[in-house]
């Protein structure tokens, strides 16, 4: 199911900004407003579309993060649906938490030969996730439903007739990108519907938040064909599917990566490039990689833990802006663009602070700037600034926009046992088939954490050299001069995918392409007993001799001890 963003963001700009602003209760933002550094073991990937599906008793629930960059007046979004949906607001925090808990991580554990004299302290090269973080009246012929929710005006339209639908959208100022009419054909027929969104007057791009749709359907689907009119090359598409079992791409292929291409020395920073290359090896470039499949336990109590959001009655009784904001911070409200936007509506930026601090800084650290301490220290800047908060109204908005969506998102992880995170990249010319997702009860889980080991070599005197032996999670071992050499290693002809599979709704994967004979065995094989040059000839005999010498040297060093 989903989504032609009518003006598609080339990057994750909105989502990234939201994610960057987000602060969780256990990691409160400092008054300086600094952002937490990103997790160095997490590859940076910019996804164009992010969707969370759950499916129960014939009803699909889709949480859709709309990523948009452009003018608010040009924001428009349409989505074909098999039935009239129930629509609610979602929360960006669901996506932020899912990304954090299921993100593929490539860690390199450095070890040193026993004889090494000085083992450097951890740091600099160790990639450890723990170090860090991350209005018009409805037209009865076309319009089924027309309403507003949060920052959006929306309409559910009958899609019986393309011209009628587009005419209505145009007349009602829903932005439609050029080319949409050419690809919308498969979705236009009796009994079909479209959901159309636009920003309400007075709302800005920063107010955009995810939407949640519930509709009857046998299987979750992303109507990617529609997206092609506004998509960028290699646009990322990430989906989480929740359910009883591991989810599969029903009509796309499935790729298992050749991890030899991962930049292990830089926490897999080239991950997205590897994904692009690997999925492009599949027919028509249509293949997903499973990034995680397993229990939902890791998501439980992250969004809706007991006591979060405090007590609504207490909050409604607070009229002092500083006290109010402090309460939000104390009770786990995430400092998202959504929250800041709501604060901005009710707590104006003090004119006296203009030119002294940035407005964004003020709202990011509002409890500090509105504290009595700061106000006393900067009394001049607050002259005439007497804001009496309409706590009832702002609290109502916060509950509608943040609290209830977050609590419902949290419920997803009590209602489902498993979640599967899948990712692919598609270019417009590859968006010819709408990916559909299903389940297979017999497939194993997939871990999102990948650990390799780099054993650094010492010379005869015990001094650590830059080179060493890299052992991949699959046991292959390579002699590596350094991280840069690993990245620039000659891998001509070596495929990026280890396997390309067809996943069925039952049984084991059907392997379509097995590249195990084409990918390198590793310079040192999988047991380190011999120096084997791979079939593609990386270095040939000379390298083999060098490696043989290296292996011999290692043995000699060991024996001397």
């Amino acid at each position: 199911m989903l989504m032609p963003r009518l003006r598609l963001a080339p990057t994750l700009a909105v989502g990234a900004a939201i994610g960057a602003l987000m602060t969780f209760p256990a990691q409160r933002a400092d008054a300086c407003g600094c952002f937490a550094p990103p997790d160095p073991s997490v590859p940076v990937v910019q996804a164009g579309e992010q969707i969370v599906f759950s499916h129960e008793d014939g009803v699909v629930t889709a949480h859709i993060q709309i990523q948009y960059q452009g003018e608010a007046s040009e924001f428009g979004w349409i989505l074909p649906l098999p039935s009239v949906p129930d629509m609610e607001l979602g929360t960006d925090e669901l996506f932020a938490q899912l990304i954090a808990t299921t993100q593929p991580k490539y860690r390199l554990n450095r070890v040193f030969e026993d004889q090494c004299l000085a083992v450097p302290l951890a740091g600099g090269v160790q990639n450890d996730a723990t170090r860090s973080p991350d209005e018009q009246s409805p037209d009865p012929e076309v319009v089924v439903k027309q309403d507003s929710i949060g920052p959006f005006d929306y309409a559910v339209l009958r899609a019986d007739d393309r011209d009628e639908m587009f005419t209505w959208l145009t007349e009602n100022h829903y932005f439609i990108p050029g080319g949409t009419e050419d690809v919308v054909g498969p979705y236009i027929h009796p009994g079909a519907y479209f959901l159309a969104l636009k920003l309400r007057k007075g709302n800005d791009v920063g107010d955009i938040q995810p939407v949640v749709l519930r509709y009857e359907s046998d299987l979750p689907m992303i109507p990617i064909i529609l997206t092609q009119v506004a998509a960028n090359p290699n646009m990322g598409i990430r989906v989480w599917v929740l359910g009883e079992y591991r989810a599969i791409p029903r009509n796309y292929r499935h790729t298992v990566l050749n991890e030899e291409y991962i930049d292990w020395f830089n926490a897999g920073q080239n991950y997205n490039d590897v994904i692009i290359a690997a999925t492009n090896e599949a027919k028509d470039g249509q293949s997903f990689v499973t990034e995680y499949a397993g229990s939902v336990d890791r998501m439980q109590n992250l969004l809706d833990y007991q006591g979060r959001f405090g007590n609504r009655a207490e909050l409604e009784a607070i009229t002092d802006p500083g006290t109010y904001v402090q309460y939000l911070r104390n009770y786990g409200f995430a400092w998202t663009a959504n929250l800041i936007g709501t604060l901005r509506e009710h707590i104006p930026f003090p004119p006296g602070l203009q030119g002294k601090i940035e407005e964004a800084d003020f709202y990011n650290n509002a409890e500090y700037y509105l504290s009595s301490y700061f106000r006393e220290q900067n009394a001049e800047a607050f002259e005439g600034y007497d804001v009496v908060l309409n706590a009832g109204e702002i609290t109502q908005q916060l509950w509608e926009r943040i609290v209830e969506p977050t609590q419902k998102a949290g419920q997803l992880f009590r209602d489902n046992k498993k979640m599967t995170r899948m990712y692919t990249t598609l270019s417009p010319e590859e968006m010819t088939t709408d990916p559909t997702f299903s389940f297979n009860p017999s497939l194993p889980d997939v871990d999102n954490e990948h650990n390799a080991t780099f054993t650094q070599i010492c010379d005869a005197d015990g001094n650590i050299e830059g080179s060493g032996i890299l052992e991949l999670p699959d046991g292959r071992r390579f002699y590596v001069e350094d991280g840069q050499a690993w990245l620039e290693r000659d891998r001509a002809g070596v495929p990026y995918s280890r396997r390309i599979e067809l996943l069925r709704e039952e049984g084991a994967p059907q392997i379509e392409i097995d590249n195990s004979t084409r990918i390198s065995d590793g310079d040192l094989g999988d047991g380190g007993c011999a120096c084997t040059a791979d079939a593609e000839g990386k270095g040939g005999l000379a390298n083999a001799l060098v490696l043989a010498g290296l292996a011999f040297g290692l043995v000699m060093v060991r024996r001397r001890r």
Partner: protein
Amino acid sequence: MRTLPLITLLGLAACGGTTPPGPGPDPSNEVSVGTGAQGGSGPFVPLEDGVELTLEPGAQGGFHVYIDVQVDEAAVAGMGERPLVKRVARRDPAGDLVSRSERTHVFIPSATAGKVELEGVVPLFLCPTPIGIPVADETIELEVEISKDAETPGVKGTLRFIPRCPEGDQAEFCRNICFG
């Protein structure tokens, strides 16, 4: 709740391990699988094995056939307000699974006395097909089981049919996604 079937099984084993054929209709053929009249929205219409069904376009770019079922009212009497309807469709004779769904449904009285049928026809999702498995122009065997819940055996019925792509605007798109 899980212990009840186990106790029943143990009881049967103690009696010699074989179950004598019970009275009444064969539970494996108690459900009639058909469709709805008037393009899928009307009352139950029985179908015969080998029938050709047109693949109807779904709103999200897929194709399905409309299915209805009819069963003796007595057979579902103890299954609550919304019995579970399991549908499994396989390509014959290869046996490839091409569609599977489980969901609860409301049953309403049929025009035929003593029978009930689904409140409305339901789409059987077929396309996009599982990758590499054609569905259109293939014989599909659909098994429908109606039960109280996922753990309780129910009554079953089957239908063998051949899905065909529609003609007109949707024909090419159907061919693209229904032939594997």
